[in-house]
Each structure stands twice: as structure tokens, then as C-alpha cells.
């Protein structure tokens, strides 16, 4: 499921736009305050460098074929993680994590059921001991107030 889009050009264009946004943003700030650089100075410099480099590279690469490409497969872990967090708003992040690990192992990797369940319980459980019990970081509990 790989799309042969010229990824390089798109990325460079995005970076170029970011640079422009930063330039505009920093011009709205003070550039020189009390004898020294103000809040807008370094971002303006960086924005200009960004626009400069990305612009030049865009022009050079315009006619070349890209040897890298965006892959839709990258959306999978990313989307899954977002889904996990949304789910976590209901059942709490920890349980959502356990569910995530289990579903990934069982459905995506197609590992045997027993292994999937064991891993999904042991590994997050181990992390729970470290991060929540020992280090005392309370994971958000979600609407149902579990764990």
C-alpha cells in the first residue's frame, strides 16, 4: 500500500511553509529589546534559514524522482495510539494500554491467544509497578474511574 508520491517535495514544501509562519510570527514580536535581541530575533533568524534552505532544496529537487515515499502503514501505529488514548478517556489509560497491547499482538501480529494475553498483562503490569506504584505517577483514570 505504498504511494509513489514525491515525498521529498511535499515535506520540503511543508517545512518551507513552517518557516514562513515563523517569520511572520517573529515579526510580530519585538526584535530588539533593551540593547539586546528580543523574543523575535532568533526565531526570525531560524525562520529565514529554514525558508532559505528548504526553498533552495525544493528548486534543486524539483525535477528529481524521490527515492522515499510516505507509507500508509505508518498511520497504523500512530492511529492505534490515538485510538488507545481516546479509549483511555473512558476506561483509564492503563487499562486502555493493556487492551492496546493485547489487540495489537493478537489481531495485527497474529500471535497465539495465550501469548498475547500473557504479554498484555505482564508487561504493562510490570510498567505499572515501576511508574505508578514506585515512581508515583498516577495515570489518568477515565470516566469510569478504574485503576
Amino acid at each position, binding site marked *: 500500500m505504498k504511494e509513489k508520491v514525491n515525498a521529498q517535495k511535499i515535506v520540503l514544501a511543508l517545512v518551507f511553509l513552517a518557516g514562513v509562519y515563523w517569520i511572520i510570527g517573529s515579526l510580530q514580536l519585538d526584535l530588539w529589546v533593551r540593547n539586546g535581541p528580543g523574543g523575535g530575533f532568533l526565531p526570525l533568524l531560524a525562520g529565514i534559514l529554514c525558508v532559505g534552505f528548504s526553498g533552495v532544496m525544493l528548486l534543486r529537487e524539483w525535477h528529481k524522482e524521490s527515492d522515499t515515499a510516505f507509507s500508509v502503514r505508518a498511520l497504523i501505529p500512530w492511529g492505534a495510539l490515538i485510538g488507545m488514548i481516546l479509549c483511555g478517556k473512558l476506561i483509564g489509560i492503563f487499562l486502555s494500554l493493556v487492551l492496546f497491547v493485547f489487540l495489537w499482538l493478537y489481531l495485527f501480529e497474529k500471535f497465539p491467544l495465550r501469548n498475547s494475553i500473557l504479554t498484555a498483562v505482564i508487561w504493562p503490569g*510490570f510498567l505499572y509497578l515501576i511508574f505508578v506504584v*514506585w515512581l*508515583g505517577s498516577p495515570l489518568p483514570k477515565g470516566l469510569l474511574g478504574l485503576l
Partner: protein
Amino acid sequence: MKQWFSVICASFMAASVLLTACSGSAAPSESKGTSGGWAPKSEIEFVVPSAPGGGSDTNARMIADIAFTGGFSPKNFKVNNMPGGSGGVAFSYMATKKGNDEILMVLHNGQIMSTLVNKSPVVASDLTYLPVVAFDNLLLCINKNGKYKSVEEMIEAAKANPGSVKIGGSQRGNTDHLCFEMMRKYLNVDITYVQFNSSGETMSALLGDHVDFGIFNPSECVGQVEAGEIQPTATFAENRLSGKFAQVRTFKEIGYPDILVTEVRALAGTPGMSAEAIAFYDDMIRKVTETERWKTEYIEKNYLTPVYMTSAEAKKFFDEETQKYNSIFKEVGIIQG
């Protein structure tokens, strides 16, 4: 194989968890009956708007430890550090917990100031003020080999060469900065503020002779003062300090009674905290401040001035203080408009 690995790690971790859990063990919760009325039903969350190890953090942990081991609170505390936005993040968090009485926050007037200056969506007056527990003072210090040996010399030099006298302090929009602005206004001189990220860096700059003066709490400079490297030339307090700093003149004595800045340590609760809960915390904190341990291990060690104000008194105090900060900061242009 994987399970084997996990099991070994888990048991190893469990051992360490047990170790730390035991050494930090909960003291027997001999809850001396609270005087009727409200008592916390679950662990009390104690929010600290700054990173661990700092003044606010130590304050919170001390209160939590004394309150629980002394039996003034039937439930233990859970300290939760939320640095960020110079207090803004913690303040906003407290606002979202409106209605929850089992959550406290340590409050320092520096955060009150910075949330005002940064126009944070939640400011201190949105929260419930709880008792004030201590005042901390500020000193103006010089390097023993420095160019200027007193405030008078500073004024002279600044008038001769406007902008040449450099005063270092940590951060912007808080107590160090306020000290500087007050000096600038009431001494009527053009002095320059050089801002550092922490008092440690300010001290390095002063020791390295990169700035002429530095603003510090007594606890931040006492080591250098004892060694003779640094000398305090004036204090921003109302009365002279004690102990090693008894020889330091106040600005009032130097002739500028308007230059007065104090750091205030207090607590705060969520907006609209119930009156019974407030009464409970008033009582609990009063008992904490009366213990020997608080006096010797916290107040004395950190060269603080012991104070106790009930929540009602604290509210009045802070409302006045906030007005003061607002007007001074507007005057000197830190708050615009």
C-alpha cells in the same frame, strides 16, 4: 523466554519496590479525633507548581510529613509536581478540580506575581486561599572584591554612569525582579537587571564578578557569606534579620522605607472550597506550624520567619498584596495596559 525475562525483572523490581516502600513507610495513622465536622476521606493530593527539590517542593513535603506522622491528618498526602508556565499549569489544574476538597497546593507569592504578569487564565484569586506559613526575606549582596561596597556607592555610580550598575536576580516577573524594580523606582537611578535561570547561576555570576550585585534569599547565600566571599549590603525586609545577618541594614534604615519585599509561603485550595474543609486545613496547618520539628527542621534551617495566618486573614493579606503587585508592575511597565 520472554516470560522468563519478565518474571526475573518483575521480582527484581518488586524487591526494590518493597525496599523503598518500607523505608518510606507510612507512620501509624493515629488520627487524633478531629474537632467534629469535615475530615478528608481519601489521600490528599498536594500539588507543587515547581520541580522537585526546590523551595516550594520542600515546603510541601515537610508539611505533608509532619501532618501525617503527627496525626493531624487522618490520611496521607501524595505530592504531585506540576512545573510549567511559572505556576500557570498548576493553577489551571487546580481550577479543573473545583469542588474537590481533598487537594491542596503550595502557594508562593512569586507565582501569584508571575501568573499576573503572564496573564495566565487562572490567577491566584480564583483559588481558595489557605493559611500562610512563613515569610522569606531577600538580601542585596556584593562580592567581597566588588567595585561597590554599599547601597550609597551604588547610587553614586548609577547616577554618574546610568545603566552601568548590574544587578543579578533569578527569573522575571517575580520577587527578585520586584526588588529590582522597587530599587529603580525609589532610589531613582538607572540600574540594569540581569536575569538568570536560578539563584545558583546568579551566585556564579556574582562570584565571577560578572555582575555587581545579586539578590538572594538568606538560605541561598549563607554558605558564601560564612566563607566571607559574599557580603550582604542591605535587606528588603521590614526589620533586621537575626543571626548571621543581624548587621545588615534595612532599606528603611538607609532612608528608603518604601522598598519592602517579602516572599510569602502559603497554601491554596480549589475554587469554592467548602467552609468545613477550610476549617479543617486551618486547624491542621496551625498544629503543624506549632511543632518543634517544623520550627527547627524547616523554619530555622532555611532562615525563614515563622508566621501563621488563618485562611480568612490570608485572603485579606493576599488581596491587598495582589493590588500592590498590580500597581507596581503596571507602573514599571511589566504589565501592559
